[in-house]
């Protein structure tokens, strides 16, 4: 009798605990559901068997499916996404690392809506619990508009730069015509104004060219045409074109280069731009009578090119952002920064298109060293290109402010093959 009493009391306690527990679990689940429902972001909750437990109304709207239709179905049938780069299907397992690692993971994907339309989304997954069940919370935002705006911005910059260039070429042209042929007719102050006009239009031209390069990089439209190339010819040419400028500044300007260099796979014009950028930076940011040393070294599987100066250097805190777009080292010059903040970004992009690497070391007040490494052409690559070399090879020459590209004599192009 006594035992029976104890037993039934125990049962009662267990049932009560169970009821309290399950009603607690239900309450928690309800609270969670209402939180997820109130999100502006679209959200789907998926259980461990990859089935949809719950989705909020932004998700219903974005996918074009109702809660009723979706619940209980496999996530891969409800939520069809593909890679934003190549449109390859991205099944749940590709973006659900959260289920294992419990950290937030973000992906840019293309969502295929129920009506067949596609939208770019930014998706985040996180490990979660709904009520007492382990689950994964998928949240996503429609970023199609942002993508569209970004494209419009790039198109606009590109178009504006192109349109600006023609009148600017005319301004520079007439200014240089005056400078070359009518200087003797001008008063001394007018001569000075003309020189300033030319300097400013040259800076503006460089800025526009840089903006165009950046918009090409962002549109994945800046291509490199690599071919086996004797970098020595290019570096020497660019070096000699800067000698006069360095001489005017009384800078010690030296080039250390071995007589014979292995060929690298490079685009002569683009890689020329890289050296022009680095050398002109070194000259600009090194005081009069400073030292600039350019070294080309054969490191068996790659060529290493360093541009070293003992100029003003770069502050430590600026180093990490040196190669980012529109970044300029602030306060580095009393008279204000000279550059556009685009040169090193473009330089880095071009080097990376060559499967090369670029790095910088600097000590404030002591100088900077920029190092580029470019992979050496393999025998296979050389053989593949051998036939085309000669007639099509051309050479970049920086001539004072300008670049003139000439046909490369066939014998220089194939000298080291």
């Amino acid at each position: 009798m006594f035992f029976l009493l104890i037993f039934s009391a125990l049962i009662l306690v267990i049932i009560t605990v169970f009821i309290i527990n399950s009603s607690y679990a239900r309450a928690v689940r309800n609270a969670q559901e209402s939180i997820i429902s109130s999100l502006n972001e679209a959200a789907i909750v998926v259980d461990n068997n990859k089935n949809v437990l719950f989705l909020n109304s932004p998700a219903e709207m974005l996918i074009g499916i109702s809660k009723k239709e979706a619940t209980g179905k496999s996530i891969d049938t409800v939520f069809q996404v593909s890679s934003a780069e190549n449109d390859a299907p991205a099944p749940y397992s590709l973006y659900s690392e959260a289920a294992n690692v419990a950290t937030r993971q973000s992906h840019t994907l293309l969502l295929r809506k129920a009506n067949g339309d596609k939208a770019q989304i930014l998706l985040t997954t996180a490990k979660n619990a709904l009520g007492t069940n382990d689950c994964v919370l998928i949240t996503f935002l429609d970023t199609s508009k942002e993508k569209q705006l970004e494209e419009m911005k790039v198109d606009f910059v590109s178009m504006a730069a192109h349109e600006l260039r023609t009148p600017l070429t005319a301004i520079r042209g007439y200014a240089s015509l005056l400078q070359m042929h009518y200087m003797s007719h001008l008063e001394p102050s007018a001569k000075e104004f003309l020189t300033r006009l030319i300097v400013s239009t040259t800076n503006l031209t460089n800025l526009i060219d840089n903006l165009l390069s950046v918009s090409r990089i962002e549109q994945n439209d800046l291509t490199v045409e690599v071919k086996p190339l004797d970098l020595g010819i290019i570096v020497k040419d660019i070096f000699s074109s800067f000698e006069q400028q360095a001489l005017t500044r009384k800078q010690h300007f030296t080039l250390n280069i071995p007589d014979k260099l292995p060929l690298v796979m490079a685009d002569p014009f683009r890689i020329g731009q890289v050296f022009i950028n680095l050398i002109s930076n070194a000259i600009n940011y090194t005081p009069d009578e400073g030292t600039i040393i350019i070294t080309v070294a054969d490191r068996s599987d790659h060529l290493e090119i360093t541009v070293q100066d003992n100029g003003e250097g770069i502050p430590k805190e600026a180093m990490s952002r040196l190669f980012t777009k529109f970044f300029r080292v602030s306060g580095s010059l009393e008279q204000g920064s000279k550059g556009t903040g685009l040169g090193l970004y473009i330089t880095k992009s071009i080097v990376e298109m060559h499967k090369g690497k670029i790095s910088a070391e600097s000590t404030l007040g002591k100088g900077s060293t920029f190092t580029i490494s470019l992979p050496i052409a393999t025998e296979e690559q050389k053989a593949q290109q051998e036939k085309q070399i000669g007639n099509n090879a051309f050479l970049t020459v920086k001539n004072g402010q300008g670049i003139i590209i000439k046909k490369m004599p066939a014998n220089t192009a194939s000298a080291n093959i």
Partner: protein
Amino acid sequence: MRKILIAEDDFFIRDIYSKVFSLSGYDVQVAVDGMDALEKIKANNFELILLDIMMPRMTGIDVLKNVRTTLQPPVKDTPIFIITNLGQQDVIEEAFKLGMDGYILKSQVSPQQIVDEINNYFINKEAITNPIPTGGQTT
């Protein structure tokens, strides 16, 4: 006096180029578009042709192609330089294949530099055609 043709559709740029070449002692003729250029090339005997790429009626590339493939020597072999803007890499490659002799990036050089470059071109060409007997040629 060397007779050259400058084909450029922009009025100001055409004016600048023709002035700067005239001042440097060239006999300059101008063409306002590609078709005009081709007609003038056929009717004259130029020593050099400078072509812009983006021109109405016919692009510089098409003019180049026409000269190299449809005309008779010596006009067919007239030296042709393309004057263009930065970055039209594929077009430049194509022009080299079609037999362009060189190209100049218009936004990057001053008109005088173009003249200097063309002067050098003629000096080098003469050195190759009439080599100085005593001096060896270096690459």
